[in-house]
C-alpha cells in the first residue's frame, strides 16, 4: 500500500512541476490571444473565423498557403482566425459541428473531401455562413470559391510545347477526376496550340500523397522520351522532382513556386493562389461584401498563374525554357485574360 501511495504522490509531483514549467515558459495570454481560443468568446466585438481543413497540413502546399492567407487576413482585418486540421472524414464532420457549437462567425473549409460533411452541417444550420474553397456546394448559406485552373494549365502547356526538344511531354496526375481534367485538358489545349505534333503522356497516381509512385510514373515518362513532365499530383510532385533530378531532365510543380527548390530541373510552377482566395474571402466577409454564390478565380483575378510568365519569382530561369518562350507565353496569357483565347472546359 505504501509503495502505491508513494508512486501516486511521485506522479502528482511530476505533473505539478511540469505544469509549472509549462506556464512559466509561455505567457498564457500571448499564447491564446493570437490564436483566438474559443473559450473566451466575447472579448470585444472581434469576428471569429475558422478554417477547417480536411487533412493535416503536413507538406501539402495547397493547405499550407491557405493557412498563410488566413493568418495574413486575420492580421490585416483585425479578426480572430483559427486553422483546424482534421485526421479523417468523421473528424472533419465533428470539427465542423464543433465550430458551429463554438459559434464562429464564418466557417471556411476546403476541397471535395469536405463536400459531404459541409452539406450535412450547413443544411442543419441554415443561419450560419460557410465558405468552401476549390469545389461547389450549392446551398443558400454556402459561398463556393473555385479556380479556373485550366487557364494556367493552358499557359503551362503552351510553354512546354515551345520548349520541348523531343516533342514528348508528360503529366503525372493524382487521379482521373473531373477536377484534375481541368488541368490535363487545359495543358493539352495549350500544348497543341503551340506544338501540334507534340505527344502528351498522362499517368494517374491514384492518390494525392503517394510520392514514390509518382516518381516511378515520371521515370516511366522520361523513358518514353519525354523531356518535360508536369507534376499534377499534390504531394506526389516531390517524387516527380526527384525523378527529374535523377534523369537531369525537366519538370514543373504546382500550387506554390516550386522553382525555388531546384531551378535547374523544376523549371516552371503552375500556381494556385489558395492564399489569395482565403484572404479575399475573409476580406469580403469583414467588408460586408459577402455573397452566397459561386465565385471563381482565374488568370485575370490572379487566382491562378505560372511562375516567370504571369508571376514574378526570385529564382533563375532555366535555359530549357528561355526568355523567348516566356515572352510568347506572356502574350498567350494576355490573350486568355482579354478573352481572345477561350480555354475549353472538359
Amino acid at each position, binding site marked *: *500500500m505504501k*509503495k*502505491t501511495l508513494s508512486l501516486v504522490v511521485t*506522479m502528482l509531483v*511530476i*505533473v505539478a512541476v*511540469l*505544469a509549472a*514549467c*509549462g*506556464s512559466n*515558459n*509561455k505567457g*498564457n495570454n500571448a*499564447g*491564446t490571444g*493570437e*490564436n483566438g*481560443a*474559443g*473559450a473566451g468568446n466575447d472579448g470585444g466585438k472581434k469576428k471569429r473565423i*475558422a478554417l477547417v481543413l480536411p487533412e*493535416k497540413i503536413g507538406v501539402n502546399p495547397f493547405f499550407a498557403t491557405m493557412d498563410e492567407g488566413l493568418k495574413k487576413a486575420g492580421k490585416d482585418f483585425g479578426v480572430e482566425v*483559427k486553422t*483546424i*486540421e*482534421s*485526421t*479523417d*472524414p*468523421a*473528424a472533419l*464532420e*465533428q*470539427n465542423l*459541428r*464543433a*465550430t458551429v*457549437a*463554438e459559434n464562429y462567425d464564418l466557417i471556411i473549409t476546403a476541397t*471535395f*473531401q469536405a*463536400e*459531404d460533411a459541409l452539406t450535412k452541417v450547413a443544411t*442543419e*444550420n441554415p443561419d450560419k455562413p460557410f465558405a468552401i474553397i476549390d*469545389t*461547389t456546394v450549392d446551398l443558400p448559406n454556402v459561398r463556393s470559391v473555385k479556380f479556373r485552373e485550366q487557364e494556367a494549365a493552358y499557359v503551362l502547356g503552351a510553354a512546354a510545347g515551345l520548349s520541348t526538344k523531343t516533342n514528348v511531354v508528360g503529366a503525372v496526375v493524382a*487521379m482521373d*477526376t*473531373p*477536377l*484534375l481534367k481541368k488541368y490535363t485538358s487545359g495543358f493539352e489545349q495549350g500544348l497543341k496550340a503551340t506544338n501540334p505534333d507534340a505527344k502528351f503522356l498522362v499517368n494517374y497516381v*491514384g492518390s494525392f500523397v503517394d510520392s514514390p509512385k509518382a516518381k516511378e510514373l515520371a521515370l516511366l515518362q522520361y523513358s518514353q522520351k519525354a523531356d518535360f513532365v508536369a507534376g499534377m499530383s499534390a504531394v506526389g510532385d516531390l517524387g516527380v522532382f526527384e525523378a527529374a533530378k535523377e534523369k537531369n531532365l525537366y519538370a514543373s510543380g504546382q500550387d506554390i513556386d516550386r522553382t525555388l527548390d531546384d531551378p535547374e530541373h523544376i523549371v516552371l510552377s503552375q500556381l494556385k493562389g489558395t492564399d489569395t482566395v482565403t484572404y479575399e474571402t475573409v476580406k469580403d466577409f469583414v467588408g460586408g461584401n459577402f455573397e452566397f454564390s459561386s465565385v471563381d478565380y482565374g488568370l485575370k483575378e490572379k487566382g491562378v498563374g505560372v511562375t516567370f510568365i504571369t508571376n514574378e519569382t526570385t529564382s533563375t530561369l532555366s535555359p530549357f525554357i528561355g526568355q523567348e518562350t516566356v515572352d510568347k507565353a506572356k502574350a498567350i496569357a494576355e490573350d486568355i485574360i482579354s478573352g481572345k483565347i477561350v480555354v475549353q472546359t472538359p
Partner: protein
Amino acid sequence: MDNLKNTARALLQPLMAIIVGLIAGAIAIAVVGGSVFETYGEMWKGAFGSFYFFTNTLSRATPIILIGLGVALAFRAGFFNMGSEGQMVLGALSAAVTAIYLPGPGWLRLIAALVAGIVAGGLWSALAGWLDAKFRMNLLITTLLLNYVAVLFAGYIVSYPLKDKSGSAAMAQTVMIDKAAWLPKLFPGMSLHAGFILAAAGAILLALFMRHTVGGYEVRMLGGNPLFAGYGGVKRGQMMIYSMLASGGFAGLAGAGEVLGTQYRYLDNALTAPSYAWSGIMATLLAGSNPLGTALAAVLLAALQTGGMGVERNTSVPLEVSSIIQAVLILFISARFTYSYFKKKKKKAGASNGPTV
C-alpha cells in the same frame, strides 16, 4: 464480492495506464511550450465539456466499442483476431451495397443492411478460423493479412464498379444511401446515432453471455485451458469457427453502423484512417477482455481522440499530443506492467486493495 473485485481490476488497469499516458502527454505539452493544465482542460472540454461534446465522444466510441467486444470474445476463447479492420470494412461495404440496391421500404433495407454487415464481417472472420481449424494456418497471421485483402478489395469496388460518378466524383465512394434507410440520429444536430444503442446493448448481452450461459462458459474454459476444455468435451475447431464468426460479426456491425449512421455511403479510407479497429483492440487489451470494461475503455480512447480535436481547435498545442498519449498507452499495455505489479501486490496484501477505485 468476486464480481466487484473483478470489475475493480478491469477498471484499475486501464486507469493506471491512462494516468501514465497522461504524464507522458504532459511532458510532450511542456516540451512544445504549452500550458499543461490549460491543454488538459481543453482536452476535457473537447471530450466531456458539454452534452454536445459528450455525445461527440460517444459517437466516436461506437465503432470502437463494437470492435472491442468482438476482439474480446475471440481473446476470451484464446484466439487472436487481428482482422477486425478487414471485417469492419467488408461489413461496411456490404451494408452500403445492401442499403443502396435492395428494393423495399426504408426500415427493411436498414435492417437488411445491418444484417448484411454482420454476416459479411462474420464470414470473413470465420474464413480465417476455418483455415486454422482445417489447415492449421496460424490465425494471427491469416487474420492480419486478410485485412489487406479486404481493404484493398473494398477500395477497388468503390474506385471502379460502384464509384459515385455524380458531383465532383473525386472521391472513391459509393452513391449516397437513400434517407429512408439511415440509422436515426439520437439528438438533432449531433453526430450520435442509433448505432451507439446497438453497441451498448451488445456490451451488456456479451457480458451476460460470458457469465451466465453454457456457451460462455465453454468459451472461457477454452481460453483458460484448452487441454482441460478439450478433455471436458469442447470441440476446439468448431468453437474456433463459431467464436470467430461472432467476433467478426461485431466488427461487421461496427462498419455497418458507421456507414448507415455517419457517412451514409461507403467512403474509401473513412474507416481505416481513424484506426477504429486498432483502437478497438487496444480497448480490449486495456480492459483485459472484460466486455463492460472494454466498452468503458473504448469511450476513454474515443475521449482522448475527441479531446485531442478540442485541443487542436482551442490551443496552439498540436493534435499529435493525444497520439503520443495513445502510443504510450499501447506501450504500457503491451508491457502489462501494471497487471503484474498489482498481481504481485495482491498476493501480499490480500483483498484489501480491491476497492481503491
